[in-house]
């Protein structure tokens, strides 16, 4: 274990985010975010709904362009790339979307084969083999291959989304709320799949979630974001950055409130808003 940590320290991080600001229509969502993710690390981005964690993750892959600041992936500033080069770079990423984002018009087999066909270097027999084995890894029968996404349950769709993200053997996998809306058993299945994926290959993972179970079980490191609207002008937006075991020992009131799931003053805020 020490060996891996030493290795991580020596290397240039896979992702380095510096001075990142993101805003929409004049409203700031992210302010001065500085973050490094070493290769091989599994990191959870924790935070309340609407605090900007999904926006941060989409900025990492260039789906959202920052107002200020840089995102360096493996030494490349992704916002300086042309559309064509960015498309090529994205083949090194895998992205698991919140609601799987499978293409409605295609079957599950076509959905899974999409990144392979997009890359264009695989024969049809190779594609068939890879699709079958990835589907098997996420525990789905080959019976679903001919079905359309609308015919599958939420948990099955998420697993297909995971298989599709893994099919190109990406160096970095981004998970957007992988367990939201699933039952406790399926939540654990997804958590175990994420852990198993990391064990199998030296992949780097960033997981956006507000599920404490995932945050405790899966990652090497937890980073907690806080909503800008609740912060003073000079307070940093990252309120926790450490090991999952340290979450419970944190002295920060905001972290404790989130970890323990306490409404606190929030309920009163809503009452005031309604009265106003």
């Amino acid at each position, binding site marked *: 274990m020490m060996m891996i940590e030493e290795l991580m320290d020596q290397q240039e991080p896979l992702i380095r985010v510096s001075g990142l600001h993101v805003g929409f229509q004049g409203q700031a969502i992210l302010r001065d975010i500085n973050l490094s993710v070493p290769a091989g690390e599994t990191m959870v981005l924790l935070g309340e709904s609407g605090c900007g964690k999904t926006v941060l993750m989409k900025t990492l892959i260039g789906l959202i362009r920052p107002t200020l600041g840089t995102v360096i992936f493996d030494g490349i500033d992704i916002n300086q790339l042309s*559309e*064509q080069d960015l498309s090529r770079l994205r083949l090194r990423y895998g992205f698991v979307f919140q609601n799987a984002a499978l293409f409605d018009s295609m079957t599950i087999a076509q959905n899974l084969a999409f990144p392979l066909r997009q890359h264009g270097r695989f024969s049809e027999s190779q594609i068939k083999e890879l699709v079958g084995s990835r589907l098997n890894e996420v525990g789905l029968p080959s019976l679903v291959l001919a079905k359309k996404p609308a015919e599958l349950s939420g948990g099955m769709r998420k697993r297909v989304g995971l298989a599709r993200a893994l099919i190109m053997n990406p160096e970095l996998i981004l998970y957007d709320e992988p367990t939201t809306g699933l039952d406790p058993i399926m939540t654990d299945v997804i958590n175990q799949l994420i852990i198993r994926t990391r064990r199998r290959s030296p992949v780097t993972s960033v997981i956006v979630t507000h599920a404490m179970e995932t945050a405790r079980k899966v990652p090497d490191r937890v980073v907690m974001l806080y909503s800008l609207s609740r912060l003073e002008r000079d307070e940093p937006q990252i309120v926790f950055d450490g090991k999952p075991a340290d979450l419970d020992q944190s002295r920060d009131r905001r972290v404790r409130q989130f970890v323990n799931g306490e409404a606190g003053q929030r309920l009163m805020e809503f009452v005031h808003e309604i009265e106003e």
Partner: protein
Amino acid sequence: MSTSTNTFDDFPNDGWFSRFANWTSDWGKLVLDTLDAIGDFALFTYRAMVWLFSRPLRWDTLWPNFHTVGVSSLPVVALTGTFIGMVLAVQSYYQFRQLGLETRLGGVINLSLLRELGPVLAATMLAGRVGSAMAAELGTMRVTEQIDALSAMGANPVQYLVVPRFLACLLLIPTLTIMADYMGVAGGYFYSVWILSVDSHHYWHNSAQMVTNFDLFVGLFKSIFFGSAISMVSCYQGFHCTAGAEGVGRAATASFVYSFVLILVLDLFLGIALDAVYYTMYPEGARLI
């Protein structure tokens, strides 16, 4: 991205100055937002054109769009074309008869169809049938993150979704226009000759004298612009769809309304430009008027 905000909100709302300031600010915001949207649309179209020429086309994305735009639209275009031809005959007949010119009906009906009604009708049907469906489909894909998923997997959404739709509309709208023209001519002939008993020989003779190849060319040339406008407006609306069922519905409606307005505006200006070309090529045509 718009960053303009109403900076006069803080003024008390009673004096004439604050009212004037608010009025100016509202109009300023409207003008800025409109310019912003036009600029954004122009950039979107430019990106589509760059992708059109920068990579080989994929037949697997082209064929389904060709089918939707071309094959599936044929019946409805043919049907409406037939009725427009017959309606023209009904409306013109009594006025021409009073002047004893009913045999001229063929020329008038066929000229109106080839130059104006055929292309505009085919474009309107395409905007209503295909344009709104495109905006709704792409809008749903935007809302359910399928467009983001395309990007995330190294496919460019503009190249993958917009280019084939643009090409399908651009290449197939002339064929739909020909269909509308043909059925309109047939409908007009049927009603004039069979129902209103206009002499068939003179009907065709007058048509052949009044309608030239240039008139057919005008209609087809205009239709190419209509097709391009419909596809770009619909794809733009779909790509910039806001969240929820309401957003998708609004994108579909807006795509039809903007497409239709653009068709009529383009029709006017292309008509003026093509007339200028005609009278430059055939100066004797201008002397007749």
